[in-house]
């Protein structure tokens, strides 16, 4: 037997399902451009005939189903793509940051369009050559002094600029660390909200979207591992450390530690091992000592590497020139790129530069520039330029400028340029590839979770028609009942 109002109930579920479908479609269209939104669908199922509620088995097989049941509003996401996206995002962001810092360093060292250390060094060399032809002439030794000064100034300028880049990046890093902390706090907050709503049986789709967006943003700064827990919360791990641990209702605050210029990111008192993300980019650029790194130190060619290179250049240059100028007659003072300067004696007298070390002695014993017993007989005014030629020759000879570099000063400057050029080029190329990979994964992800307007328009029509049809069913049933109640058995009335 069919219950009288059974059809109404079925049609009602149809109307409800159509209405909800329209609501969800409306929501999808409204949020199609909202960051982090994943499209939603209505999960519905058939209400099936359950025999256990009947005392007797139905006589025939004409019992229909009981309409449709609205189970859940689902969001469409692919967790595998989410984690791939985050890994790619970490890598792409790291390279982007690294490239921007390296470009900053390159700007300082590059001499393609501007004058820098290399060209001022060449100018100094040129002035020595001119002095060699005009030895003793105060005008030309003055020229040599001013070109030496220019070179020293460009060294000072390099260091100053590198320090500016360093300070700027350190500041940016501290801001990024603050961002990370805000995100961790927000994730924890979301975890708690989701936990409560899940317990209460309420929908959590929007909360999940927000939390996922936080994960995406966090993955920009450092590579995270997420572990889903049964209660709907998610734990966040970085390098084996729990940063958000809902199981124990805790979350860590990361902090920036500066140990004598060596920056580390710490959480809960231990150093975090950061494998990618902008934080890794910052750390590499700020900590990287290149060839100067001892075991366990960061050996990326970072700011510290170039600073050490410049310091070694300054020290070696000052040493070499001072030695050549004779014992106790320093042309330069200071042994770092920051402190190197023209010595006060040379500043006072341009002819302080030793043009000749020839003596009356013909035996040649005194020809050695460093023999302290030599009395320098001739003064610069005599015009002999043998010592200037020695300086010129030394500038063209191989010198151990750093423990890792043996060559001329000029080659040293070029090797510095080649280091930064090759590193920047490499990072720029890899950055491009990483961005491509990221964009392709993002597209795949968007292809699954994004809202398609065409699809939603079709849904709109579908649900509208379904609503109309279900309503029509009710009208038909109503008319049927009307017939039975009001028109049946009225013959002769």
């Amino acid at each position, binding site marked *: 037997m069919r219950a009288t109002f059974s059809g109404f109930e079925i049609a009602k579920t149809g109307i409800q399902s159509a209405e909800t479908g329209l609501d969800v479609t409306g929501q999808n269209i409204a949020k199609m451009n909202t960051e982090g939104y994943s499209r939603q669908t209505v999960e519905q199922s058939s209400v099936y005939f359950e025999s256990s509620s009947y005392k007797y088995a139905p006589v025939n097989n004409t019992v229909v189903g009981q309409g449709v049941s609205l189970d859940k509003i689902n969001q469409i996401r692919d967790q595998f793509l989410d984690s791939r996206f985050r890994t790619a995002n970490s890598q792409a962001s790291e390279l982007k940051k690294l490239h921007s810092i390296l470009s900053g360093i390159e700007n300082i060292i590059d001499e393609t*369009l501007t004058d820098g250390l290399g060209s001022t060094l060449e100018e100094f060399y040129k002035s020595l050559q001119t002095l060699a032809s005009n030895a003793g002439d105060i005008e030309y030794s003055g020229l040599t002094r001013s070109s030496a000064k220019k070179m020293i100034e460009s060294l000072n300028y390099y260091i100053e600029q590198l320090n500016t880049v360093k300070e700027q990046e350190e500041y940016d890093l501290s801001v990024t660390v603050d961002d990370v902390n805000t995100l961790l706090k927000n994730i924890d907050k979301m975890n708690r909200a989701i936990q409560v709503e899940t317990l209460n049986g309420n929908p959590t789709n929007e909360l999940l979207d927000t939390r996922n967006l936080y994960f995406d943003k966090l993955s920009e700064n450092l590579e995270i591992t997420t572990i889903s827990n049964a209660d709907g919360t998610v734990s966040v791990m970085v390098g084996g450390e729990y940063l958000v641990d809902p199981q124990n209702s805790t979350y860590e605050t990361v902090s920036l530690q500066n140990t004598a210029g060596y920056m580390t990111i710490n959480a809960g008192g231990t150093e975090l091992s950061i494998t990618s993300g902008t934080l890794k980019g910052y750390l590499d650029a700020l900590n990287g000592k290149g060839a100067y790194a001892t075991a366990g130190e960061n050996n990326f060619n970072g700011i510290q590497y170039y600073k050490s290179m410049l310091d070694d250049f300054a020290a070696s240059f000052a040493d070499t020139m001072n030695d050549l100028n004779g014992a106790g007659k320093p042309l330069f003072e200071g042994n770092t790129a920051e402190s190197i300067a023209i010595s006060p004696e040379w500043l006072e007298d341009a002819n302080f530069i030793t043009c000749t070390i020839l003596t009356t002695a013909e035996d040649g014993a005194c020809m050695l520039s460093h023999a302290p017993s030599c009395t320098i007989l001739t003064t610069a005014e005599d015009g002999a330029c043998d010592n200037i030629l020695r300086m010129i020759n030394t500038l063209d000879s191989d010198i151990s400028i750093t423990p890792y570099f043996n060559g001329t000063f000029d080659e040293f400057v070029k090797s510095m340029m080649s280091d930064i050029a090759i590193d920047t080029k490499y990072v720029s190329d890899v950055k491009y590839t990483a961005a491509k990979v990221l964009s392709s994964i993002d597209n795949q992800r*968007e292809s699954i979770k*994004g809202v398609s307007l065409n699809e939603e328009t079709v849904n709109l029509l579908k649900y509208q028609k379904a609503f109309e049809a279900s309503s029509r069913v009710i009208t038909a049933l109503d008319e049927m009942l009307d017939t039975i109640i009001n028109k049946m058995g009225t013959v002769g009335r």
Partner: protein
Amino acid sequence: MRMTNRMMSNSYLKNLNNSLEKMNETNYLITAERSYMKLSDDPATALKAMKVRKSLSRIEIYENNLSDAQGIIDQYESTISSINSISKEALAQVLQGITGTSDINVKKTVAKTLRGFQETILAAANTKYGDDYIFGGDQVGKAPFSLDGSGNLLYNGQNVETGTFHDEFRYIDVGIGLDVDASGNVAPKSAFNVSTSGAVLLGTGVDGNGITNNLHNLLGDIAEKFENDDLSDIQLYSDKLNEKASDIRIQYVSIGAKSDYISFFSERLYSEKTNAAKRQSELEGINLEEAIIIFSEQELAYNACLQMGSKLLQPSLMDYLR
């Protein structure tokens, strides 16, 4: 693949931006007429170009040095030329004095002329080029020749007849591999020696007959003999003068070799410079025609991209339903 509107608009924006970025890059290169703007654009080329820049700068230095050397050599040449004619003239005068009349006045005149030549030679030997006394050997800051209280000729403070003199060098680096040996001395073949010792030019010491080797002093001694009318051993002196005169002539002629050397290197440097400049423009310069074609292609792509945008971004099924 399921396409969404966001995907379309995102990738459209990305592509539009890429296209604009490329145009911007090409625009930079064309305006600057360079094939790269910074090291990392093309490290290999940029570093090669740096090397070429250095060799251009070096060539410029050597050219300057060579032209300095040429100036000095030219000055030598004209000075030695005048000393050469003086010594010839002096020889003629002396020969005339010996063979000619025994008139004491004529002899006095010869003596006077010789004294005059002495002064001219001294002045010539103290010639300056710029601020340098070119016959000062390695000490060009002060006049090399002077006379002490008793009239002895001094070269750099030493008596030319009794002093000891060594080889003198003033090297100019002309790019033939300047080399300084272990004891700090310049290897002679590795640089150009522009010093000329006045002592060598005029002669030092005395010969076996006790006659001075110095032209200036020799002229003085001969003048003295004419003044005193004592021509007993004049033949020895006139022979000596003859010898000195040919010595000066040889020195004069040998300058030509130095000049040739300089012009040979100047020419070589010039062709090196031309090559390096060509190489530089190959490395750093841009092929304008090619670059402009590339730019036009990019412009076309950008325009197409823009046009596509108006069609791509708007329509969806929405637009076709009532």
